[in-house]
């Protein structure tokens, strides 16, 4: 709860900082400090809550489970990492630097609500608080037409999916006569499921699929991720997406667990479609940024496994996947913003010009492809394990492994370009010692996740 208050206040502070401070650097410094402070607050929240007794807040609107707080802490840590890696690049996007940071604080507020909601209304508010700042961030590069287009597209389609979400919530209310997700369970019987409830569940599933960019609700993703300023794409594709997944899992685990026979097949088909579309389309992309957009769809396919498997390992899976995927993707984007040319050819010969950059990129790509000893491997292992333990949908697991093999192709194209093709990549901004240090730290995190995933799961 302290974190929700803190992030709101910090957001307001950032807004006003923009009015009185003109120096972009000091604004970025202030933002970094506030993010670090926010991490402190989330840790404070975490340590003052006991593991087994969740605290109920605001008339049971929110419930701070221990794993929710742990997720908050990890995601705040990722945001801090993001700011440390890309704070400099945020300054280059446009005039309103402090507002950008304020919006990120507000997004985090939405994230906290989504990890702790115990009521469908809170979930709705959380999703809106999470989404609306993104529409603005997507269009923050005002002079770039693609950025404005991305913003408008995202907004229009987001509004559409919000409508679907509301429809779902309404139908669920009709079936269960409550918004409280824990009470809802007892009011819906699985043997003769009310069609209202099933329709509600499907609507909500579709709305969430939109938010996490699962097929066939994924169409906005490539355009928005490609059009938005790269720094903000990095944030949208990682922390925000993880939050949406956590909310998705929370609702389906807490409320619809006992009804899983009714919806699991639909979600399995969504998962299969997502894996197929994400991986196969990524193969043909020429721009690394757009490839990463499709890869984020593909990774969403894997994260859906956690939702499919309604068991205890799923929580571990989603957390480890969220952090492994976020850290590696933030790392890649941090390298990407250093380059002028986002096509594969833009990476040619990077290994000669900036060997360290090429090396860390390789590690990040390994992680995304799920090569052992990196976080990505452990993440995939955990989510697939969750489904295997459930003992069904083996065909989907095998399909996912095949798709993971395809993903190696387009990830390794970047490595091949960096190491085996000649060329002189154009660097848009100089790579300083601090950048290198942060990249190495990120890289170390990726490997640490792959070697000792337990470190990130001790509290789940």
């Amino acid at each position: 709860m302290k974190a929700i208050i803190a992030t709101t206040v910090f957001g307001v502070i950032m807004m006003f900082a923009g009015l009185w401070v003109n120096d972009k650097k000091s604004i970025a410094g202030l933002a970094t400090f506030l993010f670090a402070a926010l991490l402190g607050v989330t840790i404070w929240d975490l340590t003052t809550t006991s593991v087994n007794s969740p605290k109920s807040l605001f008339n049971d609107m929110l419930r701070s489970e221990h794993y929710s707080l742990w997720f908050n802490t990890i995601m705040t840590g990722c945001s801090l990492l993001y700011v440390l890696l890309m704070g400099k690049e945020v300054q280059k996007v446009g005039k309103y630097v402090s507002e950008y940071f304020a919006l990120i604080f507000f997004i985090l507020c939405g994230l906290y609500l989504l990890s702790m909601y115990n009521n469908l209304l809170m979930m709705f508010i959380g999703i809106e608080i999470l989404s609306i700042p993104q529409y603005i961030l997507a269009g923050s590069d005002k002079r770039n037409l693609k950025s404005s287009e991305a913003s408008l597209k995202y907004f229009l389609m987001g509004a559409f999916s919000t409508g679907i979400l509301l429809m779902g919530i309404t139908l669920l209310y009709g079936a269960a006569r409550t918004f409280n997700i824990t009470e809802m369970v007892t009011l819906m019987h699985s043997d003769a499921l009310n069609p209202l409830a099933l329709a509600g569940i499907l609507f909500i599933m579709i709305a969430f699929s939109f938010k996490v960019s699962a097929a066939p609700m994924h169409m906005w993703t490539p355009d928005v991720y490609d059009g938005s300023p790269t720094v903000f794409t990095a944030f949208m594709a990682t922390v925000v997406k993880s939050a949406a997944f956590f909310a998705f899992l929370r609702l389906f685990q807490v409320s619809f667990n006992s009804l899983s026979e009714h919806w699991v097949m639909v979600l399995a088909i969504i998962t299969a479609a997502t894996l197929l579309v994400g991986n196969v389309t990524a193969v043909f992309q020429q721009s690394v940024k757009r490839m990463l957009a499709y890869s984020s769809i593909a990774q969403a396919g894997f994260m859906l496994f956690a939702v499919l498997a309604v068991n205890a390992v799923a929580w571990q899976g989603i957390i480890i996947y969220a952090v492994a995927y976020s850290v590696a993707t933030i790392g890649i984007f941090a390298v990407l913003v250093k380059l002028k040319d986002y096509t594969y050819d833009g990476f040619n010969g990077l290994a000669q010009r900036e060997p360290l950059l090429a090396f860390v990129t390789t590690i990040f790509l390994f992680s995304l492809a799920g090569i052992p000893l990196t976080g990505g491997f452990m993440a995939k292992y955990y989510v697939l394990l969750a489904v295997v333990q459930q003992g069904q949908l083996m065909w989907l697991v095998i399909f996912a492994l095949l798709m993971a093999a395809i993903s190696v192709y387009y990830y390794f194209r970047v490595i091949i370009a960096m190491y085996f093709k000649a060329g002189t990549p154009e660097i848009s901004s100089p790579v300083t010692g601090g950048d290198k240090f942060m990249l190495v730290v990120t890289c170390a995190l990726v490997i640490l996740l792959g070697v000792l995933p337990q470190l990130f799961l001790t509290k789940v």
Partner: protein
Amino acid sequence: MANLVYLVPLFPLIGFLINGIFWKRMPKTLGGVIGCVAILASFIISLGIFFEVKSASFQGPLVVKLFDFIQSGNLNIHFDFQVDALSSLFLLIITGIGFLIHVYSTSYMGHDEGMVKYFAYLNLFVFSMLLLVLGANYLIMFIGWEGVGLCSYLLIGFWFKNRDYTNAAKKAFVMNRIGDLGFLVGMLLILFNYGTLAYQDVFAKLPAAHTETSSMYNWIALCLFIGAMGKSAQIPLYTWLPDAMAGPTPVSALIHAATMVTAGIYMIARSHALYDLAPMALDLVAVIGLATALLAATIALYQNDIKKVLAYSTVSQLGFMFLALGVGAYTTGVFHVMTHAFFKALLFLGAGSVIHAMGGEQDIKNMGGLRKKLPITYITFLIGVLAIAGFPFTSGFVSKDEILLAVYEHNKVFFYLAAFAAVLTAIYMFRLLMLVFMGGFRGTHDQEHHLHESPAAITIPLIILAIFSLVGGFVQIPHLFGGHDYLNQFLGKAGVPAVIHEGPGLEMKEWTLFGATCVGLLVIFLATKKLFAVSQFDGNYSGFKKVLANKWYVDELYDTIIVKPIGALSGILDKFAEKAGIDGLVNGVGKTVRWGGDRMRLLQTGQVGFYIFIMVLGMVALFTLGFFWIK
């Protein structure tokens, strides 16, 4: 002290990291000093642990918990070390002999440009080996097991510019991998049957010996033994070890004689509770051990490479150890590991000293009469030969005597065959001694001029090892000669059972063995002198001797029945299945994916209306599925 056990592998690891990272820039002497100091520090702590384990107050095996390693579902593997009599004894052997060999290497490798890298590998090896013996579960043992395999590969191919050497390294690696597969399967079988890999948990779940039989015990034991076959060079996976002599000689001494190759014996001794329930597997261990001991001994008779002789003698001695394990005399097997470590390290280091003096020459055709030029090497080598031949009261005598006695009580036929192998051992070792150190020099004039005694860094380890080869057996001198079973009692604390020699006929048997050994050795010594006529030695053989000199053509046999058919088969597969079938399939899949990607890419039109249309279409489809199809 035992709680500090994590420091033992930590020091070599640090040494490896320092040497490994800075090997290009570091001065050679510094690299050598770091390597040696790291092992010395480990040795000192190992000594402390050993005495603590030995003290009466030490209660049972101590498991030192380090951290959780793998935790997923029901599987829970900790990174723990187990300190007990068995592991502490191996700690002493590894770090003690390891330290001497490190010191020796500072001089032996002093002129090599890759010396710091060499020390890095050597430290990594010691680290892996310590992990292997310290681990409290099979997985950590396996990590160490793979680690030593890797180091062995790196060190055999250390002079990688020579194609033969790298081939030898590859051969060792592949052979070991075959064995490792067996180990892995055995490990998985344990995991499936008992749900854990920790020694104490697994053994606690086993029933008391001989109360219950199940073929599962035999299967697990068999699989683990296949692993041991690979690592400890037993039939049929032994051919890599002689080739492994391509590595620097100290490496042969440390890895391919004293420590790594005994990992298989350690594993079986560690798993004795399992093997006690698997009589069939145990019999197989004995038979394979005996066969290997005999086969390798016959091959060693007619080898002309000084290191090859020692290599085959190692294979043969390893066979003896497995024989001891196979007849249930676990402590005896471990005891022979210890004494063998002393005298075989000594012999290899002595051989290294000879090679050093000869300027890299390894062929005994060109040696002879070296005793005057290399007195210290000669005397220490002589002691080594006496020990391995089983001269009374040397360490080799005590351990081999015990093995033979244990075998005698188990099976008379085995005993006679083993005794014959022991006789062969004495013969080829005396032959080697004579051809190298007696008679006149057969090499070139230049070489003769170059001959010199090695520096102190080489001779001091030789002397220390020689002393241990002489007296190292006293811990286990038979009762007959006023000894006590110190080692048996010590290992008994780890629960490793000893074969207790008791009964009325025991003294008689011991005297008989003792007498036979004394007389036998004398006869052999004289016979060898005649048999191999040192003065007329030219290194060429004919008839049956040629078969032995060519190692029974086992390499050629493997080549004909395994390598060539596989090569031919893969040639056929390459032509038909690969080109037409697999390539077609793989390329076809790749093309399909690319084609699909190309089509699907076109769906991304950029029109929001179209996107929403697709979305609605998807929704309708999903709703149809959800409502009408799923049920």
